[in-house]
């Protein structure tokens, strides 16, 4: 019982995921700065940002709109992110075995943060937030199908194993899924879904600073915004971790393999960072077309390839 609590709250739960996510966010910002000839923030900057918002800044509530929904949605978003992270990390580190069908639950939990951003934005009663919410909604509709297809393909590739543990075991036998042709296609589709889920360029149109001034989050301040920032840090850890688990062979923490695990995570975040620094933002209709036609096609090709054992 106490052990479970420790797992959920400290390692590999809430605290660990937040801290690791914050460091990954620093890494992302530092690499961005180097790409752009800037110096970049100090190592602890994500923590300064978070605690300043949490403890120092005043929370201002919008006069119109539903305050309860507005304030509760970041809490639900944080919970969703946290639970999905725990469900991925426990079996991935071999601490607990997970339950049958936990891949499906993780898929739903990963959707919750994006949904709550949207609901919170709609509760804010601001026209710019409403535009942001409508864009977020369209974006969710477009990438979720691709994401679901990717997960289905991974399950198919692991001989219909629907638990995280079995997928890792299957990769232990056959080698990481990304080593095959279909695995490469799935990897590409997963990375773009991840980019959209994280709301980074080229799919940051729900925030779009220069168009709708951070759209969905425009009315958030203080503690409520701190929770959103924390959710974002956590997602920056959880999604690359999920990618590692499903396609890159999972985590091993014994001896030299720990180094590989860390390098895998950093490599995935580096890829995200480079994509976001070498592309302009696309329009929402272009993003929808990109996912509906091209990414879905890519995954379907991958599924056909899996059928032929490639």
């Amino acid at each position: 019982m106490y052990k479970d609590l420790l797992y959920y709250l400290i390692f590999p739960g809430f605290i660990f995921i937040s801290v690791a996510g914050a460091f990954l966010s620093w890494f992302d910002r530092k690499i961005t700065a180097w790409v752009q000839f800037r110096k970049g923030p100090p190592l602890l900057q994500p923590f300064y940002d978070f605690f300043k918002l949490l403890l120092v800044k005043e929370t201002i509530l919008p006069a119109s709109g539903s305050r309860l929904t507005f304030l509760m949605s970041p809490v639900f978003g944080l919970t969703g992110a946290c639970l999905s992270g725990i469900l991925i990390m426990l079996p991935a580190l071999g601490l607990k075995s997970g339950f049958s069908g936990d891949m499906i639950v993780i898929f739903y939990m990963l959707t919750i943060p994006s949904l709550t951003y949207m609901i919170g934005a709609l509760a804010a009663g601001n026209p710019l937030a409403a535009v942001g919410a409508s864009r977020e909604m369209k974006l969710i509709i477009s990438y979720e199908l691709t994401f679901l297809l990717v997960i289905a393909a991974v399950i198919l590739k692991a001989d219909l194993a629907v638990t995280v543990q079995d997928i890792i075991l299957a990769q232990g036998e056959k080698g990481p899924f990304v080593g095959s042709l279909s695995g490469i296609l799935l990897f590409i589709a997963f990375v773009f879904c991840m980019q959209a889920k994280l709301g980074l360029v080229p799919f940051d149109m729900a925030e779009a600073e220069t168009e709708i001034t951070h759209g969905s989050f425009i009315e958030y301040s203080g503690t409520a915004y701190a929770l959103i920032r924390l959710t974002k840090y956590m997602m920056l850890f959880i999604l690359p971790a999920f990618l590692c688990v499903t396609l890159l062979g999972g985590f091993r923490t014994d001896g030299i393999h720990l180094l590989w695990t860390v390098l895998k995570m950093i490599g995935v975040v580096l890829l995200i960072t480079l994509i976001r620094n070498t592309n302009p933002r696309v329009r929402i209709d272009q993003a929808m077309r990109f996912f509906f036609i091209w990414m879905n096609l890519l995954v379907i090709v991958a599924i056909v390839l899996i059928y032929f054992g490639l």
Partner: protein
Amino acid sequence: MSKIIPIGPYHPLQEEPELFKLYCEGEIVKDIKWETGYNHRGIEKLSESKTFDQVFFLVERVCGICSTSHPFAFANCMEEIAGIEITNRTKYIRSVIGELERIHSHLLWLGLAGHFLGYNTVFMWVWKYREPVLDLFEMITGNRNSYAMFKIGGVRRDIPNDKIPAIQEVLRGLKKKLDMLVGAVMDDPVIHARTKGVGVLTREDVIDYAAVGPTARASGVDIDVRRDDPYAAYPLVSWKVITAKEGDVFAKVEVRLLEMYESVSIIEQCLEGLKKEKEGDIEIPVDEIPAGMGTGRAEAPRGEVFHFVMTDGSNFPVRHKIRAPSYVNIATFKKSCIGQTISDATISLAAVDPCYCCTERMAYAYDAATGKKLLNGSELVRLSQAKTDEIRKKMI
């Protein structure tokens, strides 16, 4: 039912205060209205209280980015009134300053356009490449911006011949950077997707709205004051006016990028010209400005700058009228933004490179029936004094 999406008065899209109201249905912009006037400084009126030499420093501050185009136009205007023909060395120096400014202004815009599209890497890179141009300004004029170089009948500082190789060196480096940028921008498929066919201004629209500068040239309207009303050294060097046909945002990017190559070429030719002229021959003494009227035009990076000055033989202008290019270019938003999505409308707004502080005007309200002024300057002063009194009373 349409909702209003405000862009401004404070918005990350534009650094200056202005308000665009986009009347949207869903994401589609159905109508656009704009309010400027947050930034009015009364420069035309101020100018009437300054001597001709001081006016140069004033008009330099009309625009922070193209800070030499206004002195340029004002100098052309005053020289027309006084009937002065400036020396060739002055002409070359003026053109060098004007073209360097065009390069730095276009680079600044290109970076901002990248930022507006969410492409911050382009923003940072382009602004880094702009730095050497500002350093060059510092070397030539002593200032990175607001160069204080112009005066009636000449320029204030010479470009000594021994500084010319250094300028040529910077230009060579700049050309390499430009090649890289042109390659990066012109071949990027995502930039194409975001800018081609967006914010299209047809040739007719441009003529109807009297747009100027790169905004007009990108729609196939071949106008350029440097060629159409020659001044400074532009008739002495060979160059061509860049135009494009499409009229969309991409065409405007293209025109500005290619114009920078022309500017580099003009500067190089001017530097060759400078070597032939006698050093220090940079001004014609002017004793007195006769009574009269004159107009001066100059091609700023954003388009034609127009100055009108009326003099009465004293050393103050009696009337000084300035028209900045953004004044006409902003009106084209009615054509370019309606029917676009919000994402496209914002980049269309930025594509004309608007400069609001240049274009602010004082407006009088007239009664349509009687033609009577409802609010004039002194009444406004009285109103503001009354308000100050009220605040003071509250505070004491």
